[in-house]
């Protein structure tokens, strides 16, 4: 009986050591937002001063674009996102841009120069961490009409991929 008790205590001790080691080795970067999960909700103020809440777009297919004015591949993608907004918007598609610039001035200039036709807000590290960390740009999330993450694309991505995924999701309803 005493031996059994000893074993149980040792197992408990082992679990505690395991938990300690696990907690010590967690990196600061949160786990990436996974496909199939609901996208983390957030509210930001866009460049026009309007409140933008992600969950308000439930019912639409959303392309959530993390970008920055100094990011060359981001600048390449954006004209295509403007086209996609025109093409698929009437079917229930919405592009949302979250700039990771450190300040809003160049974002505002870019927004006007490229005539973006979708809302853009300036994000920060806290918002980025909710999406698993934005440790390189661009990062694009495709969300289905229920707000679930359908796909996450890191780095420069062939724009036809976005077209295909958005078309597929729009066709589902």
């Amino acid at each position, binding site marked *: 009986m*005493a*031996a*059994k008790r*000893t*074993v149980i205590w*040792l*197992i408990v*001790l*082992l679990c505690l*050591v*395991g938990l*300690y*080691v696990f907690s*010590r*080795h967690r*990196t*600061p*970067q949160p786990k990436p937002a996974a496909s199939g999960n609901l996208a983390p909700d957030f509210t930001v103020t866009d460049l026009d001063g309007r409140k933008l809440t992600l969950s308000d777009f439930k019912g639409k297919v959303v392309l959530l674009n993390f970008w*920055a004015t*100094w*990011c*060359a*591949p981001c600048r390449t993608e954006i004209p295509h996102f403007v086209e996609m907004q025109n093409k698929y918007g009437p079917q229930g598609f919405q592009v949302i841009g979250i700039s*990771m*610039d*450190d300040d809003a001035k160049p974002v505002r200039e870019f927004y006007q120069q490229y005539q973006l036709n979708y809302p853009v807000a300036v*994000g*920060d*590290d806290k918002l*980025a*961490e909710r999406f698993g*960390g*934005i*440790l*390189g*740009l661009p990062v694009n999330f495709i969300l289905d009409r229920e707000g679930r993450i359908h796909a996450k694309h*890191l*780095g*420069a991505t062939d724009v036809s991929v976005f077209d295909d995924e958005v078309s597929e999701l729009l066709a589902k309803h």
Partner: protein
Amino acid sequence: MTKYRNLVAVIFMTIILIGCSAVAQEPVLFDGTNPVVLSFQSAPSDASIPEAKLITPEQLAKALQSAKQKPLLLQVGPHTLYAQAHIPGSEYMGAGSSDAGQQKLRERVTALPHNTAIVIYCGCCPWSQCPNVHPAYQLLRSLGFTNVKVLYIGDNFGTDWVNKGYPVAKGD
């Protein structure tokens, strides 16, 4: 009790192994001060930064673990990236492509000897499209620094440093 003796031994060994691994993988922390001249190996080439001036993440991580005195580590990328993840001990300078970033970098190194070992890095974008490391490197060279290395980050800081398990810190 004899019945459980082997089990007890296994559990003790497991605890010891876990303890050892915790010590072995402890992130290397350093404050980036008191920089000295270090020798580095070569890395992939780039058109505007000589190959000999590049250092790979693996080489830097090893150098930081083994060297008693560390190079001065300067992050020349955006603050949103630095705040999420940066190399422990590295200092935020601001984007090397911006006037503010260049000014801060100039002020930080102005009192240092020109042979100070300095490593700059960004990782905001794929290497060939990073707007920050090249101007930061050129500025340091123009100021007369002879021992400047640039961390070669092929894709981005997340892929090439964080996800590789190298030491990371966060915050301002």
